[in-house]
Each structure stands twice: as C-alpha cells, then as structure tokens.
C-alpha cells in the first residue's frame, strides 16, 4: 500500500480524546480541577513553608515568642478568663510565615500543620483510592467475566464486607489494628504508620467499586463484540485486556475523584477519632480535633482544616461529575448502594 497516503492521514479523534475535549470545555469541572490542584500544590509546598517560617509544625513550643509589629508576643498567653488557669494560644496574625492562622494548644503553627496535614490527607486518600480501584477491578473483572463459582465466592465476600456500615467497619478495624499494626505474611504495617489508615480505608470501599465494575463486565461479557472476539479465537486474557478493560476504564476513571473525596472524608473522620493519623503527625482530621477544645476562643484552628476539607471534597465531586459527563454522557454511575 502507498506509504505516503498512510502517513499523511490525520488520526481521527478517539473516544478518549473526545472526552478530554469535552472535559476541557466543562467550566465547572475545570474550575474544580484548578481549585483542587491549587490546594494540592500548597500542601506539597508544606516543607518549604515550614522551613521558611521557622514555626514548628510538630513539636510543642509552649514558651516560644514571636515579633508582631515590633512587639514581642508570647505564643501561649496566660488565660485571663475564669480562674486564670491554663494558656490561650495566639490567634491568627494574618502575617504569612508568622503564625498566619495562629497556634494550637501546643503552640504549634496551625498554618504549617494545615499544609502538612493536607499532605497526609491527600496521600492517604490517594493511596487508598489506588488500592481500592486495583482490587475492585481485579475482583470485578474476575467475577463478572468468569461468573459461576468464581462470581458466587467473590460476590459473597463482597456482601460480607458490604453488610457492615462503612464507618462502623473502618472504626472497628482501626481500633483493633491501631495498637499492634498488621502482620500478614511478608506485609508488616507498624501501628503508627500512615499505611494503616490507607489499608483500612482502601479495604472498606472495595465493594462499592467492585459491584458496579462486576455488573458492567457481566453486561460486556454478553455484548456482541465480546462474542465476536470469542468467534475470532481470542483468548480470555486478550478479551479481558483488549475488549473489556478499555470499556470499564471510563467507569474506573470516574471513580477516581469520587473515591478520593470519599476517602478524604473517611480519613478525617478516623483521624478526628484519633484512630487515623497518629500524633505528632497531622491530618485535617487531627487538626480539627486539636481545635475542638479551642472552638470558643480560637475557632480558626478547627475552621481552617474544616474549610480545606469542604473545598477539596467539593472540588473532587464536581470534577467527578464533569468526568462522568465527559466520558459517557449517557451513563449514570452513582456511588453507594443504588
């Protein structure tokens, strides 16, 4: 065949490129993506900010002093209310690098902790999402494609996981595992490790993704193009990889931001209950817990991470909706039991 003709042909836009274009034109989704990326980048710069501000994000610094408008001020002031016992941390100075959002009950810089905490929150949510999607895809593909006994066994296991409310399961698992960590064969997770919440959150959401994937694979299994592939003599692995997975991929991609959002909420909840990220490490959940006691005097300590969670989760959800619309305008993928 003539090479010239082949090389001058413009590759037509595939379904992926079309979806990307559609997403690019979706203003709400792009705004959400920008918002999310800004928050993520700020959190990624946490060590830079900490190094520059000299404020201590992790060690308690009860006797530190700072300079504000030429005056030396204690980070922890003697409380003037009530019996005059205890200390009141400094409020927001609104000066970048100088206790911008004030200090918490240990005299630690809230702004710096907020960034480090965000880093942990994103890390846990992201890693748990990867974990969930990986196992859910494996389980969904196997159960949906092979059916029969494989499906029966896998579906029952998912049902058992599903029978527990997510938070109840996550909390129970955390409480049990937080003391001693996990040892499963070669895998060992220390009790204070970030991997513990990642593992727990990743596990509890597997059924929520595996179920829709299984359903979709089952219907794809009956589709004519899979019939055609069998008729061509394709092996099971070829059919799974080349015909089924690309069609399931859209669902999985839509799940990424939605699961991220859900995981961030779960992570905050666990950390808020002191069974997620362990001190002195921070996450948005632990900072809210720190701020709980200061809610009346220094509301910013709890408010700032709360706002950060709301913004991130909202951005991720809007992005997820946009992705869904862009990838398959007809589909109605929903999280949860539906």
């Amino acid at each position, binding site marked *: 065949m003539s090479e010239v003709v082949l090389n001058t042909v413009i590759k037509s836009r*595939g379904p992926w490129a079309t979806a990307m274009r559609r997403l690019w034109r979706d203003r709400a989704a792009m705004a959400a993506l920008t918002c999310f990326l800004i928050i993520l980048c700020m959190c990624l710069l946490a060590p830079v900010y900490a190094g520059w501000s000299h404020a201590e994000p992790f060690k308690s610094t009860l006797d530190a002093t700072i300079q504000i408008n030429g005056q030396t001020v204690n980070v922890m002031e003697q409380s003037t209310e009530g019996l005059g016992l205890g200390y009141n941390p400094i409020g927001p100075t609104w000066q970048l690098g100088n206790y911008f959002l004030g200090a918490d009950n240990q005299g630690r810089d809230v702004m710096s902790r907020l960034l480090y905490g965000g880093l942990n929150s994103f890390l846990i949510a992201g890693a748990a999402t990867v974990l969930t999607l990986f196992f859910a895809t494996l389980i969904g593909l196997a159960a949906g494609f092979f059916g029969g006994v494989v499906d029966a066994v896998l579906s029952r296991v998912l049902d058992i996981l599903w029978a527990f409310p997510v938070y109840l399961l996550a909390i129970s698992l955390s409480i049990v595992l937080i003391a001693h960590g996990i040892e499963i064969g070669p895998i060992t997770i220390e009790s204070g490790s970030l991997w513990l919440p990642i593992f727990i959150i990743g596990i509890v959401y597997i059924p929520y993704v595996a179920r829709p994937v299984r359903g979709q694979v089952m219907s794809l299994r009956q589709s004519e193009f899979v019939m055609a592939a069998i008729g061509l003599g394709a092996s099971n692995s070829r059919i799974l990889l080349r015909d089924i997975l690309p069609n399931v991929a859209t669902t999985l991609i839509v799940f990424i931001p939605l699961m991220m959002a859900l995981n961030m909420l779960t992570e905050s909840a666990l950390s808020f209950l002191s069974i997620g990220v362990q001190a002195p490490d921070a996450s948005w959940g632990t900072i809210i817990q720190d701020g709980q006691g200061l809610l009346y005097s220094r509301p910013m300590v709890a408010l700032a991470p709360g706002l950060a969670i709301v913004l991130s989760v909202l951005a991720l959800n809007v992005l997820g909706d946009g992705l869904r619309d862009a990838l398959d305008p007809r589909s109605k993928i929903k999280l949860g039991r539906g």
Partner: protein
Amino acid sequence: MTVLYEAKNVSKRFTVGSRFSATGKLTLNAVDNVSLSIKAGETLGLVGESGCGKSTLGRCMTRLYEISHGTLVFDGDDISQKSLRQLRPLRAKLQMVFQDPSASLNPRRRVGDLIGEPLRIHAKMNHREIADRVSELLTLVGLSPDHATRFQHEFSGGQRQRIGIARAIAVNPKLIVLDEPVSALDVSVQAQIVNLLADLQEKLNLTYVFIAHDLSVVRQVSTRIAVMYLGSIVEIGNIEDIFAKPAHPYTQALISAVPEPDIKKAGMRSRIILTGDVPSPVNPPSGCRFHPRCPIAQDRCRMERPVLRVHNSKQQAACHFPL
C-alpha cells in the same frame, strides 16, 4: 462437491426462569434436532420468522453457544467435542459476521486494530505486515486504507458491516456464518453488501451460511435454502426447486409473502396469510409443530411429528401431506 460442514441432530436448549420463579424452571428448545450439511463453495440460506432459532443455530455452528446435543463436523474435525481452548486455532477457518455491526465492533478500538485482531491471534505477522494486510482488506471490502485509524462510530451502517466482513475474511476462512448481515441496513445498502459478499465468495472461495428472514435477499445469494420453523428445519433444498414448487405449506406461505415487483403477476398470485402466532418454543404443540397454523392440517398432523423426507425427488420437507 465435498461436504465442508455437517451438523447432526443438533439441539440447543435454554433454561428459562429459576426454581424460584412462579412457573418454575422451563426448558426452551431453541434448536430442536437439526441436521444439515453444507458443501464447499455453496451458500446455504437459513430462513424463518424471528424466534425460530436460526440465529441460535448459527451461533451453535460456530460454538459461540454450547450445543445441548448432537455433533458438529467441520472440515473433517468433530468440533462439538473440542474444548473452547482447543477450538481457538480452528476458528481461523470458521468465521462469523453479526447482524448489528455497531454492536459487534468494539467502539473503543480503531478499525485497523479491529481488523488486525484475527491476524494477531492466528497469523504470525509483525506490525508492518499486519498494517499492510489491513490496508489490503479494507480495499477488498470497498473502503479506503486510511480508514484504519478511525473508529466505528465514524462510519455508516453499510461501511461498518464492510468492516465486520473485512475482519471475518482476514485470516482466509473456509466458512463464514453470516447472521442476518443485511437486515439492519437500508435496502439500497443491502444490495451493495450482498454484491460484495458475492464478489468475495468468488474471489476467496468462501462458503456461506446466510441467515436471514428476508426471502428476497436469500433468493439472491443462496444456492440452497433451509426453512426453519420453531427450532426445526421444515424444508431444505435447492433454491430454484423450492421457489418453483415449495413442498411444505409453511414455505409456501413464506414465499407468497415475498413482494412481487411486477404488478400484473402480483395481481394473479394468491397470498397465503397464516393465522395465529408462532407458538412458544417453551411449550411447543404436539405432532407437527406447524399444525395449529397450517391451512391443510389433519388429524395425523396433531398426533405424529413428520420427519424430513425427499419430495419431488429434489427437496426434503417435513410434512405428512406435502404440496
């Protein structure tokens, strides 16, 4: 002519409902004890109303459905006993084209990728050779080589069916089962595809099983025709013989329903209109399956099931009182 494919006493039963449904588990005899043989180079038309099991039979013949009973012999090999894995290399010689090309072509893969798939499975070719072969195939089915980089949704129905055909002929099969390849297309496009299939048959020495419900299309392409009713073959024979003098009343009714373009002739012939619907294959009538709708049914038809017998020393028909 040598026999290329032989189906002996093939049955396909589906189970409907579950133990827990109101009616309980029911058996649906989609294909009921069908035997036929296909000679190399011919086109066997398989016709019947929708739901008569012709597509199921087609899928059984390519082992896309597991048969419940019977044997399938293709090119000297008994393919009904082979496992799906053992069957894979044989599939190169036995291909299938589906009714709805937009459903049978993966929407997420490029046309070149789709047509190249059988080559990657069966032929030991490198990328360059596959690309060349794909261009060649596209030209052969009347498309342009640069269509290889497109997706199926960018094509019209007729073009999509051409892609499906290109994929089926990629590895030089001997037999292609065409499952209503033109019924989803416009009449004008139907003619083009039918002509393409005829050209390809001549060029590549193909044997076709042409499944259709449209007798006028079947008449154009087939050398022999098998008429199915409720899972069984009621008449089988050469196309001219059957159209000239159908032996089974069902065939006669079907042929009388074919539109006649010549007004003078159309006025002269009598249209046989069957009453009633096709009975459910879950609960088929006793005796001859066709007797509730047959204009010439008698008591014997209600009791005894007719078998295929030679009539007029030409075609075979399953009727006690052939016309």
